[in-house]
């Protein structure tokens, strides 16, 4: 156990005019911890994720992040350039739609290599070798390295997006419905892959999902959101096995048994 949280979220709220996006959300995320944010569409999960990852500025609140050198920085008081650098190197963001996170017109190898160049790699041979190694890790055959993601299936695109995000050895990865829109067999493979990578690399992750099975498999801790508020929060198996709030009970009881 390290004794400093990686991320400290303090009373983050986001209003869209009069409407609440998310309200007064606070939590700590520790190194190596995977947090799932669950709730139905429109509950504010993605708004919260976007606020924490600084893709969206909240109306009020602050987020502190422990940098690699141990210093603690307030994310909303960083310069745009610093934030962008953080996003390109120390963080990953896996979008629900791979087309939002990939460059669809350049090759798979270049998609992975671009993030490496952002952290200063210049040797073409090394970049290509690392890219090729990462394609293998996400189970994409090496001979597809020169193909553009357009020529890939949905599941392959999602795996490529994950490789692109993890190649720089980030410490924190944000995922927005990473398995949404994939069919179940592809989902299982992706989940298993993500689970393995998170364990091996000791990543911290915040995963937004409406799928409780995904949360069960990947996360240590879970936050349940409704109408912009966090209504329940705890160990993932505690929240799922002994839900306390009416809405959480509804969510859990709505899972279809196969």
């Amino acid at each position, binding site marked *: 156990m390290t004794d400093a949280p990686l991320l400290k979220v303090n009373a983050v709220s986001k209003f869209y005019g009069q409407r609440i996006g998310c309200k007064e959300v606070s939590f700590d995320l520790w190194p190596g911890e995977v947090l799932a944010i669950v709730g139905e569409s429109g509950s504010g999960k993605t708004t919260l994720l976007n606020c924490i990852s600084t893709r969206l500025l909240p109306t009020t609140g602050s987020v502190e992040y422990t940098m690699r050198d141990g210093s603690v920085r307030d994310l909303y008081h960083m310069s745009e350039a610093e934030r962008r650098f953080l996003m390109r190197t120390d963080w990953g963001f896996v979008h629900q739609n791979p087309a939002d996170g990939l460059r669809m017109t350049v090759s798979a190898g270049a998609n992975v290599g671009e993030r490496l160049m952002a952290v200063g790699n210049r040797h073409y041979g090394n970049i290509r070798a690392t890219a090729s190694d990462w394609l293998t890790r996400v189970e994409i055959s090496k001979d597809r390295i020169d193909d553009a993601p357009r020529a890939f299936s949905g599941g392959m695109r999602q795996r490529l997006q994950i490789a692109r995000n993890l190649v720089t050895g980030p410490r924190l990865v944000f995922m927005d419905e990473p398995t949404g829109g994939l069919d179940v067999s592809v989902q299982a493979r992706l989940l298993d892959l993500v689970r393995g990578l998170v364990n091996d690399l000791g990543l911290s992750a915040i995963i937004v999902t409406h799928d409780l099975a995904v949360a069960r498999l990947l996360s240590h801790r879970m936050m349940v959101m409704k109408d912009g508020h966090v209504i329940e929060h705890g160990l993932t198996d505690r929240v799922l096995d002994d839900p306390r709030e*009416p809405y959480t009970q509804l969510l859990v009881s709505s899972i279809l048994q196969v």
Partner: protein
Amino acid sequence: MATSLVVSEVFKSFTMHLRDGIKLPVVKDVNFSVASGECIVLGGPSGIGKSSILKMLYGNYAVDAGQILVSHHGRIVDIATADPRTVLDVRRHTLGYVSQFLRTVPRVSALDVVAEPLVARGVVAEEARQSASALLSQLNLPKELWGLPPATFSGGEQQRVNIARGFITDHSILLLDEPTASLDARNRRVVVEMIAEKKQKGVALLGIFHDEEVREAVAGRILDVMQFSPRKAAA
């Protein structure tokens, strides 16, 4: 003998919000302790709250009131109020749990499922697999199965994988929820031996065993859960 686990004045009920908020009492005023090297068996009919007690101790169920004190890394942790991160650390190092059913993860081999708790503690993968192999052979799981994901295994085979996974570490407290339910006589005896070994090493064990032969063989003391049942008072 050191006391590893103390349960004090624990109350638990479920509130069913989807059923007009009816309250189902589960247990009340649960008090007991388990010492190092001791195996206590929870007794009583089905539905009396035995599994619920184990789940509360493991942090799977929240408790309404009371304390669940575990000696963890030389200090006392109250599972009932500890934050998720502490509970996870207690599970990783101190408190083990063998559930009735194995929750299988797609594509992970039986050997790796068993080795995982050691790997999670930082043991090198190769070394962890060796310990896993030793346990799986002790439990007579055919070697051809070791490399396969347990999803397709029979009930008894899955249960043996589950037992191996629970017994691989040197956790100082082990919770066992009917670990022998779907095993044949030969493998039940192996489990009885494994429990005896754990006792010898000073592990505190708390279990549910419906099989009388096993219960006789392992129980130092039987704790009747009926005394904690709120239904008794109502009746």
